């Protein structure tokens, strides 16, 4: 039995009321969306807010809609199940629909939100444990302690970014809309991340993520998501791969992007992916050779740590396999790539 530490629950009915609570209680307040990350983390006493501010009663935060000029807006409180099932998302951003559809199991996708997934805390097997467990081992520097159990002598936390939608949103060049005491700010999702597992996002505690915006994609857009895990529905990604390919009318690649997650504290872009795929037709041997070149590049860049489940060497060996398969799936207009 895991009991929650004590807190009070507030259910503001407007954005302004929610912001006022965050301003009033500062670091003592914490936002709850679906609660599927926050509640376990509170049970483990990793976060112990005095006030929990629910966004469930703010209707404008939920749902998928048109944002003008072909952009889609996805309210931060839209459930992952709704993101995965939405016809517009599936057509305009297949990699995102696939990634959302592979998060956890059905109950957690019903509860969990897109905003909560973007803002998911990093994960580490020395961190996502009860207070008793962490105390017995010796606290680490992400919470309550001064050393790292993963990197001996390390002074920086390397807990892994583990949110499936983040790499997909990066390949799609999504923008995030935050509101805070200074008003609204729009930021490309690429600029959200910091390479620090203790706090890997530039987002203040008095800010709210209100929506995710997706730019328009054309008929030549292809995208797919690949996910490595041992058990569906419980395991976070041991590796996540999002791919995007843009094709011209003749089926030749005009742009491409590949982003990996669960390897380090932030999602990482595979270097030179576009360069290696540019001008290649998305089929046959030439495409396979180019996809292999991207896979090799991803393998050179990937250095998984022994901080999340799954042998780190195995996870590294799977990087080129999943990159190649996920590129091939995108080219075929298929996906997701998922063996469980």
């Amino acid at each position, binding site marked *: 039995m895991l009991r929650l530490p004590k807190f009070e*629950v507030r259910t503001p009915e407007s954005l302004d009321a929610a912001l006022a609570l965050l301003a009033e209680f500062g670091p003592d307040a914490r936002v709850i969306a679906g*609660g*599927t990350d926050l*509640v376990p983390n509170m049970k483990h006493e990793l976060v112990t807010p005095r006030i*929990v501010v629910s966004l469930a009663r703010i209707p404008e935060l939920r749902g998928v809609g048109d944002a003008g000029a072909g952009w889609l807006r996805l309210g931060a409180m839209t459930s992952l199940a709704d993101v995965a099932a939405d016809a517009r998302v599936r057509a305009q951003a297949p990699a995102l629909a696939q990634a959302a559809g592979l998060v*956890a199991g059905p*109950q957690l996708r019903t509860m969990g939100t897109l905003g909560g997934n973007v803002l998911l805390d990093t994960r580490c097997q020395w961190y996502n444990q009860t207070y008793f467990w962490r105390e017995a081992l010796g606290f680490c520097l992400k919470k309550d302690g001064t050393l790292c159990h993963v990197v001996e002598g390390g002074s920086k936390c390397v807990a892994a970014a583990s949110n499936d939608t983040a790499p997909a949103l990066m390949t799609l060049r999504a923008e995030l809309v935050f509101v805070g005491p200074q008003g609204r700010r729009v930021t490309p999702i690429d600029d959200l991340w910091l390479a620090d597992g203790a706090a890997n996002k530039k987002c203040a505690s008095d800010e709210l993520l209100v929506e995710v915006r997706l730019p328009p994609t054309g008929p030549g857009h292809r995208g797919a998501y690949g996910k490595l895990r041992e058990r569906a529905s*419980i395991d976070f990604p041991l590796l996540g791969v999002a791919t995007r390919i843009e094709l011209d009318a003749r089926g030749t690649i005009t742009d491409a992007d590949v982003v990996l997650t669960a390897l380090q504290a932030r999602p990482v872009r595979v270097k030179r992916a576009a360069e290696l795929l540019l001008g290649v037709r998305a089929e046959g041997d030439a495409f396979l050779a180019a996809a292999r070149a991207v896979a090799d590049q991803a393998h050179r860049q990937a250095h998984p740590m022994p901080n999340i489940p799954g042998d780190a060497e195995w996870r590294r060996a799977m990087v080129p396999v999943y990159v190649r398969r996920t590129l091939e799936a995108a080219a075929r207009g298929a996906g997701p790539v998922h063996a469980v």
Partner: protein
Amino acid sequence: MRVLHLLINGDRVTVAAPEHWTLLEVLRYELGLTGSKQGCDKGDCGACTVLVDGKPVLACLTLAALCEERAVTTIEGLLPAHVKSGGSGPDPVQAAFDECGALQCGFCQPGMMLSARALLDRNACPTRTEIQDALAGNLCRCTGYTQIVEAVELAVAKHCGVAPRRPGSARPRGRSRPPPRRA
């Protein structure tokens, strides 16, 4: 403490509970509805699955204070709801689990049956793959799942008027099936 006005299995319930309690704690320790099981208590196992507004969620990660004005269904509510809608005896999903012997220790059953009930409410005649996907968030450490999937298929078959396969006669299908032999 906080006074909560909940709607549980069709009944309006007013209950005082600590403000930071989960829905699972309120169900089990205030209302005596111990059918919802406390397994891992952190979102892994699905034993605590209940329906909120008809959709399966994990009661161990749901704050009770956020359930006001929402309809909660627990395993205790399936039979009365079935009788109320004109049926007799347990919900067809429960009857099928019984008929197929789809349990050993039984700990996963309430959650399994609620996930199955929610599936059949939105898709009366699902395929085997759809059944497996809908139950993917409910772990069973005993049965090996075969009889559980067969039980849901039996409930489906009865509902859709198709003759059910004899319980126990189906073998798991899907990837694990050997490829058909070439002539």
